[in-house]
């Protein structure tokens, strides 16, 4: 009896070891790309509830709005073929494109569009993720091919919000958008396995340029295994790789360099001492050396910035602010002395521990601030704790984080510094800024508006609202089999344009 047991055990053991050699073979010959993503979609598959940037960038392949952004930051028609605005700027008339189908095969109707806009605007009782949609007065179905959106007040940014993933067009008759996403995008959702993957397939009836690669898998990787799996050949493409990590990847990949399109800064709680004093904040700006941060923590990659705007924004971006505060320890000490902190002070930098680049940055900042007598210590917290304590609770001294733009509007970056804004987590309050912001919201003339936006940026810089650092460089390694990776000025991934090299 015992002998037989040992026999069975040893058979099992040899079998498992022998089978080990069989793994790694390909299943099927159809085209397939595996994209590594650093976290699962943990908020919702309903585009109207997708809060995390990491979720929106994946859902971008499944969903579209009436309009959508292109890689140059322009808004191009999607489910709508064109739109007009009435002269008073209050009514947007969207003409629907013919023959757009949902992934379930049903055509997109004007009713679906009305339902989608109302749902994403919170008019059906759900929370809206687009604050600017509270401005929608009504959505009217004019005909089978036209939907009109009427606003309470003019808003030149309205088309940009309509183009965001959070305002995607979804079918009215889908009772469970949380678990069965149905959209109109180039890829359709097939299935998901929690913490494992999300499977998609190209949509044959897509109205525009169809995706070239049939099978798409988003594979969830936890930070450490991402590089191993890239090198091992399990994943073909991943995004948001840092300069230090990219050095560890071999020659099997084409590496594209772009920017993360976010404003990385040492954000200061402007309400508490000593950060309520502009001189202290300015002193800190002088005390730090942006280039040294890039060299020490980012292998020299990244673009230094001087206000809450990043270079991809083109016409709004002001390169001249980058060097508003050159590295100058003497000046920093002088300003500190004026503000009554001749002997410096102690402060805490709260950083989300899952974002290595921000932690690294904080470490360099601690050393640089020390040179002017500011004694900073780092407090690493979990992301969820950061969200509740720092972001919503505003119970912190300073934090290093990157703030991105959820839509292609200046407002997405500058709106949060309006003193009573919900998301003004740094408690910035400046009457002049508030006045400029209010005026910019009402201004329809583009030149005048751009001018106001630039004034706001300048004010943030002069007032040293935060210690601005950089727009981080991002690297995208892609397997040499593929080409066509495209950077967008927004946090989205467009897999439909990737194809096999000839």
């Amino acid at each position, binding site marked *: 009896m015992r002998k037989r047991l*040992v026999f069975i*055990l*040893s058979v*099992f*053991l040899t079998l*498992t*070891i022998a*089978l*080990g*050699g*069989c*793994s*790694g*073979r390909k*299943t099927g010959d159809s085209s397939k790309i595996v994209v590594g993503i650093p*976290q*699962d979609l*943990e*908020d*919702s*598959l309903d585009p109207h*509830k997708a*809060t*995390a940037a990491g979720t929106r960038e994946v859902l971008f392949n499944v969903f579209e709005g009436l309009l959508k952004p292109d890689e140059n930051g322009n808004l191009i028609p999607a489910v709508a073929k064109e739109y007009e605005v009435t002269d008073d700027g209050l009514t947007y008339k969207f003409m629907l494109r013919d023959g757009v189908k949902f992934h379930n095969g049903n055509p997109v109707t004007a009713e679906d569009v009305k339902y989608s806009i109302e749902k994403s605007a919170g008019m059906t009782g759900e*929370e809206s*993720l687009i604050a600017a949609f509270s401005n929608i007065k009504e959505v009217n179905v004019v005909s089978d091919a036209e939907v009109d959106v009427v606003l309470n007040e003019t808003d030149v940014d309205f088309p940009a919000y309509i183009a965001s993933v959070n305002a995607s067009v979804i079918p009215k008759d889908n009772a*469970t958008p*949380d*678990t069965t996403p149905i959209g109109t995008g180039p890829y359709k959702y097939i299935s998901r*396995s*929690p*913490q*494992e*993957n999300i499977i998609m397939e190209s949509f044959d009836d897509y109205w525009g340029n169809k995706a070239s690669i049939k099978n798409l898998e988003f*594979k*969830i*990787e*936890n930070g*450490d*295994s991402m590089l*191993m*799996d890239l*090198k*091992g*050949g*399990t*994943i073909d493409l991943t995004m948001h790789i840092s300069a230090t990590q990219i050095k560890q990847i071999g020659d099997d990949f084409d590496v594209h360099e772009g920017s993360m399109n976010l404003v990385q800064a040492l954000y200061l709680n402007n309400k508490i001492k000593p950060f309520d004093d502009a001189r202290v904040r300015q002193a800190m700006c002088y005390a730090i050396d942006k280039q040294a941060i890039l060299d020490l923590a980012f292998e020299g990659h990244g673009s230094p910035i001087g206000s809450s705007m990043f270079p991809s924004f083109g016409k709004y971006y002001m390169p001249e602010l980058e060097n508003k505060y050159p590295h100058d320890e003497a000046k920093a000490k002088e300003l500190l002395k004026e503000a009554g902190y001749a002997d410096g002070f102690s402060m805490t930098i709260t950083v989300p521990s899952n974002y290595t680049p921000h932690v690294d940055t904080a470490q360099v900042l601690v050393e640089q601030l020390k040179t002017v007598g500011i004694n900073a210590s780092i407090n690493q917290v*979990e*992301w*969820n*704790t950061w*969200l*509740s*304590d720092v*972001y*919503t609770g505003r119970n912190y001294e300073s934090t290093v984080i990157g703030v991105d733009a959820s839509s292609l509007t200046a407002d997405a970056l500058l709106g949060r510094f309006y003193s009573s804004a*919900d*998301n003004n987590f740094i408690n910035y309050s400046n009457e002049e800024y508030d006045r400029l912001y209010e005026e910019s919201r009402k201004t329809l003339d583009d030149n005048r508006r751009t001018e106001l936006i630039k004034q706001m940026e300048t004010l943030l810089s002069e007032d040293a609202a935060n210690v601005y650092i950089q727009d981080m460089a991002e690297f995208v390694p892609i397997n040499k089999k593929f080409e066509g990776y495209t950077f967008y000025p927004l946090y989205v991934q467009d897999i439909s344009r990737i194809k096999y090299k000839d």
Partner: protein
Amino acid sequence: MKYIGNKLLTMLITVLIVTMLVFLAFRVIPGDPVSNMLGTSATPEKIERLREQMGLNRPLPVRYIEWLRDFFFGDMGKSYTYGSSVRSMLASKIPITIVLTVMSFVMVVAISIPLGIYTAKHEDKWYSKAIDAVNQITMSIPSFFLGMMLTYVFGLVLRWFRPGGFVNYKDDLLGFLGYLVFPAVAIALPKAAMTIKLLKSSVLKEGKLDYVRTAYSRGNSTDGVLYKHVLRNALIPVITFLGVTLADMVAGSIIIEQVFSIPGLGRLLITSISTRDYPVAQAIVAIIACIVIVINFIVDILYKLTDPRIV
């Protein structure tokens, strides 16, 4: 019967205490599922509204008792992050972790029992000493580090397997088992080393006792004494140890799942904690607690079978 009754009672009490602790732990750590769902679009008003909708504002004891009631009727609720039923989610993850644990346990037994006896039998030979030395080293390597080494050597250099190339058992059973071999080795080796050492010293200790001398004097062969008398007694501490080890391996697989990116119970547990997905985390902890208790229960019974004197 009374024995089993007592055991079941202990089991219930343990599960109660463990789940209660989990409930309290989530209360103590900052952040909640709502702040995770709303992310950076959260405002205090939105948070309050959603908390109210999700019933998170109700008193803790009420929520606990309701959860407990549902859990015992097999209803583990709905995941906050995935919107699907926790039961169906766990149903697809549990087999992965169980197979991994069982596979590594089989390896431990298959490696350590023969080697333990062998080294004890040939105690003075040089190869036995060599095995001892290797043992000592293997024992001191933490399994996650061993996992990383295995990935590097067999995955990246020798390419015997593709790191991260996990295939689900639903798609390809052989590929699934094949991928789990190296993770199982990573869990098994340190444990096997410990078991070998224990078995060896246990056999040697028994070998010096009076009853062994008597057995020899009655004309038994070395092997006869070893397998008929010594081993039976020497195995008792080993069984205890293997029982504890198996329970430990369930927990150890959680870490190894991270190293080899295996989407099992462990990975789900870790992410559900960081997203404050209470229903999922609570269910997993409760289930792991139950598994550990059941294992201990089985060990107790095995005890009785090996040595009838144990009451």
